[in-house]
């Protein structure tokens, strides 16, 4: 009885080991491809590589990708209606948002989930200048048009983008400091 169960477990773990070894490489590639596709979407067309980095702002660690001479793609998350809404925000060298993309969200289908598909909502962030327009929904006194019936999701999205802009400013300030040294 014990022998049988052990033997089965042994064989199964061997199978899993093999499966893991075989798929580890393609999984890593798929993830890199996905990240690269997102970066290409949120930043203007660029040549060369996106260099990953991270910066601490308050208690939160933000990941970003830097493309020399083009701008930064910052990953930022904020709590929506049913979990974090993770957004990648592309900001060009002049501090203007080029585009944004949702990396993951678990909002209500047909309501908050529209932050991924509603073009009116997504397109308003293209070419957004954070210096002149406030990144908050109109209900909170900002300039973001919320998705109908999904204010909480829209608020999270605006907050995530706004945090990304903060991160961008921190990165630029840090790098400016280094250059002066």
């Amino acid at each position, binding site marked *: 009885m014990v022998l049988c169960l052990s033997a*089965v477990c042994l064989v*199964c773990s061997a199978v*899993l080991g093999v499966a*893991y070894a075989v798929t580890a490489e393609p*999984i890593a590639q798929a993830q890199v491809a996905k990240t690269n596709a997102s970066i290409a979407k949120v930043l203007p067309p660029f040549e060369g590589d996106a260099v990953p980095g991270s910066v601490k702002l308050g208690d939160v660690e933000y990941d970003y990708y830097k493309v020399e001479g083009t701008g930064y793609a910052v990953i930022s998350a904020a709590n929506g209606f049913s979990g974090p809404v993770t957004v990648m925000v592309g900001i060009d060298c002049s501090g203007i948002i080029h585009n944004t993309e949702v990396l993951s969200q678990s909002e209500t*289908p047909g309501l908050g989930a529209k932050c991924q598909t509603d073009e009116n909502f997504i397109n308003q962030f293209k070419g957004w200048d954070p210096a002149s327009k406030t990144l908050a929904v109109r209900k909170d006194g900002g300039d973001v048009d919320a998705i109908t019936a999904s204010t909480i999701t829209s608020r999270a999205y605006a907050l995530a983008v706004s945090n990304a802009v903060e991160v961008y400013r921190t990165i630029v300030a840090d790098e400016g400091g280094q250059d002066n040294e």
Partner: protein
Amino acid sequence: MSKLSLITKGFVKDNPTFSLVLGMCPTLATTTSAMNGLEMGLATMFVLILSNIVISLVAPVVPDKVRIPVYIVIIATFVTVLQLLMQAYVPAVYETLGLFIPLIVVNCIVLGRAEAFANKNSVVDSALDGLGIGIGFTMSLTVIGIVREILGSGSVFGWKFIAGDGILAFVMAPGAFLVLGYLMVLFNKFLAKK
């Protein structure tokens, strides 16, 4: 029982969703669109066929007392392999189904077929049984997905035929129960033999 009827019994007579009423959790949760239902059905079918084959092979040597743990370990292995494969080669599909792929382990259909069929039948018969039940499950999920997608999003397989939203409730959980209930009524009225 002929080989053909081994497969076809999963379509109507032993249809896992409408007739046996097994595996309700993935049925309700993943059928938000026709495509999701179809993908979930195919993923379950993959596990079902392979676990049926292996379990029918090992069943004669497994002592009765530990048979359930052994079956679960075997099923879990195939599910994890499937999960890794999907992550590697169809990451987009993996992302939509996400949590429900690992949950195939505890899908009653898979363990149910192992316990009710695979452990006392030949390898070939068990494989065919897995195929038949798998097709039945896939068809049911796809049909529920089609109905929910038409009513909830106004589209079929992602192809939109009305502008706007449709009846949102059908994309959410209450709609899943409603559609499943009414389809089960229709199924039992017109297809199931008394």
